[in-house]
């Protein structure tokens, strides 16, 4: 399809509602700024911005990182590459540098999928391009941050990650809102490609705020023997998130692990999940979600499709309700298209088991302490295996949230 034809399709989709999530009137959100000041060193950023980065696992000193990429509104303010075996740059620059990238750009995600993808496409959104070279084991993670800086605007992002054959890469990405920014929107398109025997560990932390709308659109295409481990953490308030990344496992013996940990605060609406299409023999997938509502709405989706022999999958959605006003909806779906598959699911929503609370109280803990320790344990299952620094940050966030008091 030619560029102009694609553009036409995208233009035709600017009003197209998404399949899930409340509809957002994009007309209310202006184009995000492309003229913010760039920095060659993250340590030159304002103290406030550096703190925002730290909270989502992005280290301004870049210590222990192979590269960094920071997008504020629609301005790439920083991009650097420290380690070897990996390329880090903006997608728009990469498209100029690498002719071949055209065949990956907007190929996994369709520009006309819905109004959000259409807007990002038509704005020629920029984002990170991270490329792990063949056979390279990138020792330290690459970090990226997508930050909202201006009120009333829609940040549009287009990211591409390619992990070449036999390469290993870890990415930590934090999406955040700068202080005092309200009524803004984040539309993030991500296209990830994992080649034969490639491995990607992708950890995403969302720290939005009460008035922010978020509509990520993510597609992951995996070849034979590829492994994708995804951790998604969203513990802060948000107005509305709807995300449903899709994994297409096209090569045999692929492995996909997707963990979600989220808290829906009063006023938050979180429609989250992931979809795994196991299209080749021997693929395995594990989707785990641990969600809490303290007054908001959580919809935990999960879909697994087994379309080849010998695939195995397990889907687990567990939700706690810690407030009378919260709502938990678990929607696990399993679809087998051939007989020789093994897929299971486990969903449970409800309040904390009283017998567990009383058991701890019988050891001298107060009711609040007991609830706190159980809730932390509940969430911990979803974030095992996170980088220690990030795990500590999450621990701290949980302390601040003070779950026991809710």
């Amino acid at each position, binding site marked *: 399809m030619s560029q102009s034809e694609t553009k036409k399709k995208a233009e035709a989709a600017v009003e197209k509602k998404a399949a899930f999530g409340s509809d957002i009137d994009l007309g209310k959100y202006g184009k995000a700024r492309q003229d913010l000041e760039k920095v060659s060193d993250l340590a030159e950023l304002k103290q406030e911005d550096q703190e925002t980065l730290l909270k989502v696992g992005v280290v301004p000193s870049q210590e222990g990182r192979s590269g960094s990429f920071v997008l504020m509104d629609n301005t790439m303010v920083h991009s650097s590459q420290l380690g070897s075996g990996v390329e880090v740059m903006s997608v728009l620059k990469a498209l100029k540098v690498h002719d071949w990238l055209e065949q990956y750009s907007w190929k996994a995600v369709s520009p006309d999928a819905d109004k959000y993808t259409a807007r990002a496409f038509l704005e020629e959104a920029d984002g990170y391009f991270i490329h792990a070279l063949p056979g390279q084991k990138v020792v330290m993670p690459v970090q990226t941050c997508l930050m909202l800086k201006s009120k009333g605007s829609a940040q549009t992002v287009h990211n591409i990650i390619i992990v070449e054959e036999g390469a290993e890469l870890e990415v930590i990405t934090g999406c955040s809102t700068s202080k005092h920014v309200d009524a803004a929107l984040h539309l993030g398109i991500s296209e990830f490609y994992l080649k034969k025997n490639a491995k990607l560990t992708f950890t995403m932390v969302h720290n939005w705020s009460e008035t922010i709308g978020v509509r990520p659109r993510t597609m992951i295409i995996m070849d034979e023997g590829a492994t994708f481990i995804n951790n998604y953490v969203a513990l802060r308030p948000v107005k509305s998130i709807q995300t449903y990344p899709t994994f297409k496992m096209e090569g045999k013996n692929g492995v996909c692990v997707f963990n979600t940990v989220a808290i829906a605060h009063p006023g938050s609406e979180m429609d989250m999940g992931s979809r795994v299409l196991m299209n080749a023999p021997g693929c395995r997938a594990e989707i785990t979600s641990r969600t809490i509502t303290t007054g908001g709405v959580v919809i935990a989706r999960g879909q697994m499709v087994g379309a080849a022999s010998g695939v195995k999958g397990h889907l687990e959605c567990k939700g706690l309700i810690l407030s009378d006003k919260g709502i938990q909806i678990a929607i696990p779906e399993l679809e087998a298209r051939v007989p020789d598959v093994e897929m299971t699911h486990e969903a449970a929503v409800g309040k904390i088991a009283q017998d567990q609370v009383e058991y701890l109280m*019988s050891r001298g803990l107060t009711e609040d302490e007991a609830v706190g320790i159980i809730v932390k344990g509940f969430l911990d299952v979803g974030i095992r295996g996170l980088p220690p620094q990030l795990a500590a940050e999450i621990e701290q966030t949980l302390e601040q949230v003070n779950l026991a008091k809710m």
Partner: protein
Amino acid sequence: MLEIEDLSVEVGGKEVLHDVNLSVMAGYTNVLFGPNGSGKSTLLMTIMGFSGYKITKGRILFNDEDITNVPVSDRAKKGIGLMMQRPPNLVGVKLGNLVKVMSHDQKDPQVLAKDLDLTSFLQRDVNVGFSGGEIKRSELMQLEAQNPCLVMLDEPESGVDMVSIQKVGHKIHDLIHGTSCAGKRGQTGKAALVITHTGQILDYVEADRGYVMCKGTIACMGNPRELLHEIRSKGYDECISCKLKRKKAEPISVTEA
């Protein structure tokens, strides 16, 4: 230390305990016998204060204070501790962390775990995938960290293998007889109420008095070893007829030492 007076308890709308009278004095270890389903565990759960065990009549006194309506955690803080038969799984809560939290960092989990061969369990989720014997050891370790004045044990020997029983037995001995209880420094004065079917635990603790529960009430009481012998040779029927003879089991009135 513990006085139970005319206690009746409902579970799920059905009366399970009827007019139970029982006492445990400081420094004493009392044993509770009785067939399955006679209400022994229900009694311990009620003393601990768990919801779902509704007291319809009578009261519970602990150190002369009426604790009938006191919340679970306050009973624990006052010095009551329970080794449960079937404690719930705590997914995501590490055993080592729990021991640290409950002892307010006063006890080193590593040290406690070593004696009970639980070192490798400190990083595991509490009770998840534990065998029967492992649960007993984990419960015992938690009680050690808690160091209650009134130690209640629900079948401490069941599921424990032949080798571990020695360790478990000696630990229980130390727990009951060895150290002073929390809040009562320099004064041992602990008490224990132990449920047992086999009597194996009597090899390790000095039991003072035995009670037999039948159909939700105390059928008789006496020397624990004699009672055990009776039950072994004649079954529980004898105890029930004994109840008929005595009509009502009164708590033995002895002034606290």
